């Protein structure tokens, strides 16, 4: 087991996927691309395993799984029971002192860095392989004690019923969970949203779509409200703007998040101004060029900082979209050209 099990994002690249999980590796890659991501660090899969071994939780789970394995197949009731049992085992364990100290050391450093004692953080799971039902996220976590509790809870989320069912279906080991954890400074979101560097419905690669709302990005991602929409031509910058009436937004509460009413004067006001929109599109184009693939990205503007330092990126991944037939045709023609070079 490696000694080092916590990494700053700038120490990570996409090739560290297996070590820290996809989300963390991706954030590391984004830092190296010059994208501003929320300050924070990653807890590696090793960190999780160290916890499981030193506390004995791993042993208890293995024994339980060994005993119940056959009965678990295709038995939802048993799977729910297993999930409850395993998660309670994990959550009943204290984090070993040396691990606590290491975690707190990084948290303190983060507080110093952002000049904010007990800085509120988001704690997100970061699986090395995509697995449904393993997406536990705790927002607005403040202070060392809560940090430890929530990290352990994220680890436990590797054993939700859905995650157990998935592993059974795919013949994966039940007692192993390659799970990393991302600890990120909470952004005091003025507005947030998503950007796609392709029109998802037609596959038009000449356009970038930006959708946003006031407050946290969750309202846009979940599709609960109709956000403002900006379709920007990548070449000319010509923009098609649709401003919608935004009545609700997602904000923090003391612990976690809640839905709040958007103040009347903001409801029909664009959530982005011209220069903010341009900055988003500029960076999105760069990132797309780097990966050579249309991107699906999440951004947030911090109300505590000034433009352009207030633009943070929390996600970029290959966009899913309907490929435009002409583009696909040209791609095939290009591939055919290559066979003459072999």
């Amino acid at each position: 087991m490696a000694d080092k099990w916590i990494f700053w994002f700038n120490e990570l690249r996409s090739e560290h996927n297996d070590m820290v999980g996809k989300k963390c590796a991706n954030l590391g890659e984004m830092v190296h691309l010059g994208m501003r991501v929320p300050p924070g660090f990653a807890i590696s899969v090793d960190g999780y395993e160290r916890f499981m071994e030193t506390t004995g939780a791993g042993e208890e789970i293995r024994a339980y799984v060994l005993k119940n394995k056959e009965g678990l197949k295709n038995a939802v009731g048993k799977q729910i029971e297993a999930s409850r049992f395993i998660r309670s085992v994990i959550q009943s364990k204290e984090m070993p002192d040396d691990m606590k100290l290491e975690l707190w050391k990084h948290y303190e450093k983060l507080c110093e860095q952002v000049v904010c004692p007990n800085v509120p953080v988001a704690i997100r799971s970061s699986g090395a392989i995509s697995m449904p039902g393993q997406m536990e996220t705790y927002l607005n976590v403040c202070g060392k004690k809560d940090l430890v509790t929530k990290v352990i809870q994220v680890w436990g989320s590797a054993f939700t019923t859905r995650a157990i069912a998935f592993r059974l279906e795919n013949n994966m080991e039940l007692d192993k969970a390659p799970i990393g954890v991302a600890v990120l400074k909470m952004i005091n979101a003025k507005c947030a949203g998503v950007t796609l560097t392709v029109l998802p419905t037609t596959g038009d690669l000449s356009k970038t779509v930006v959708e946003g709302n006031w407050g946290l990005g969750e309202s846009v991602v979940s599709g609960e409200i109709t956000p403002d929409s900006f379709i920007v031509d990548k070449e000319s910058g010509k923009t098609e703007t649709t401003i919608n009436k935004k009545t609700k937004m997602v904000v923090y509460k003391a612990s976690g998040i809640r839905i709040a009413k958007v103040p009347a004067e903001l409801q029909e006001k664009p959530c982005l101004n011209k220069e903010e929109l341009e900055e988003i599109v500029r960076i999105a184009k760069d990132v797309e060029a780097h990966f050579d693939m249309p991107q699906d990205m999440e951004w947030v503007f911090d109300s505590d900082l000034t433009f352009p330092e207030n633009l943070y990126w929390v996600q970029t991944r290959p966009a899913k979209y309907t490929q435009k037939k002409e583009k696909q045709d040209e791609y095939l023609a290009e591939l055919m050209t290559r066979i003459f070079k072999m």
Partner: protein
Amino acid sequence: MKIYDVVPGLEFDPERDFEQSPAWFLDGTHSIPPWTPMFGWFWINFCRHGMQYGAEKLSLPTVKGWDWRFMKGGGYLTLLLVKSQEEKQRREERFRKAILPFIEDYEGLWGGFIKEILERYEHLKALKLDEATNIELLDNFEETINTCRRMWEIHMYMMYGTYTAYILFENMCRELAGIDDTSPTFHRLVSGFDNKVFQVDRRLWQFSKRAEEEGLVDVFLQNEPANISAALATSEKGQAFLKDFMDFMNEDGWRMQRMSEINLPTWVEDPTPALSNVKQFLMKGGGFNLDEERGKVAKEREAAEKEVLDKVPQEQKGWFEQLMRLAQKSGIFSEEHDHYLDLYTHAMMRRSALGLGDRFVKEGTIDDREDIFFLIPDEVRRAGINPDQFDLRYIVERRKAEWEEWQKTPNPPAMLKEGFDMDQAMGVLVQSNDPIALKVVVGAMPEVRPELKADLYGTCGSPGVAEGTARVIMTEDELHLVEEGDILVAATTSPSWTPIFSMIKGVIVDRGASLSHAAIVGREYGIPVVMNVFEGTQKIKSGQRVKVDANLGTVYIQD
């Protein structure tokens, strides 16, 4: 008086031609046995033209088509390689655009060409040969020459484009799903489609069903194929059957038993080969159902498609599936083009030439109508309008004597410059990246696996395992020797062999690649085909018991 070369300007000349290229390969698929002079003239001139036309229209980056020479009834070919890197780049730029029509609308492209060429045939057939004037007959012949020229343009443009897509699909299957064109799963992916050749086959099978219903089975089973037609004519039901059968021949019988020659009757002239196919279906008995057999292959394809698509990453699925659909059309094209292009055009050549042949016989220019196949178009023109003024028998006599000589000694498989060996020559073929050379001529080299203790090693042309009596068939004339349940052993096969695939259990061919005839038809009939065994026809004797395992590419001689 001087008798001209058979193909003036394109006769093989070792002194000059080895300077151009050190290796010339015999086209064994098409020019064994040696061609008649007239057919050789058409093939060498226009197949050569078509390949260079197709390669140029598509601007293939590495190859400019093939050059051809004529020698003793054999066609010899060599590749025209693009020489400089700069030129390759320029051609590559153009190729990217030129290939798009195949990707955008393959069916529209191929369908358009079928329409164009069928219109030409209809126009040629519209002339009533026995009533036409000499001028009209000569015009018809000139138009046939142009039709043949155009046919080869379409043929090679389509073939180059189609096979390029097929090769890409093969590469992508290897890269994304880990299977290549010698794998059974791959073959299932490209089988089970309907095409014109199978439609003709199905019509023949349907006629066999009708014979059963109308009590005509005995007429077929108790007569030699050549006598079936006469025997049918003795009953009323038989006459009605024969009338419908001849209508079908007039539609789809514009083909000869040998694809690349014109000296055999077409099915329209003599339906014996077609009636013989009906007889073979009847001999299989009532249980045989062609549609059912073909349906099974289609089902297997759908399962294979799912298996492969599941392995392809989500974001690559879109174009991969499009490419797969395109590659699947390669097999359809490979079979169908024989029907619409080669076979039909050659039947038109025969028809038009015989129209003049009859007239020449009448005027004493030649002795026999088929003697016209020993003349070349310039000589036909000499006597075309006033045949009574010319006696061309001395040309026919000498050419025929030569042709008979050609039949006695086989042409060498390759003409190689001194110091140049076959391996080097094959190397050049592979280097060219020429899609046709790779997929039809060369093929994958078999892997010899001593642990399997096989007698012959080849590659998989169509998956499966079978055991049966070997039947070694060297020419079309011997096809009637094939019996139900045999394992066919041949140097190569051609489209006129297609109907026997419904009788046999497996195929072993000396040479072939995944788009050669035996492989495509074997896949459609769901029988195993082992290819590129090189010495099958030498090592195996008719009557021996053999086992083929196409999945492993092995052949076992059990006697």
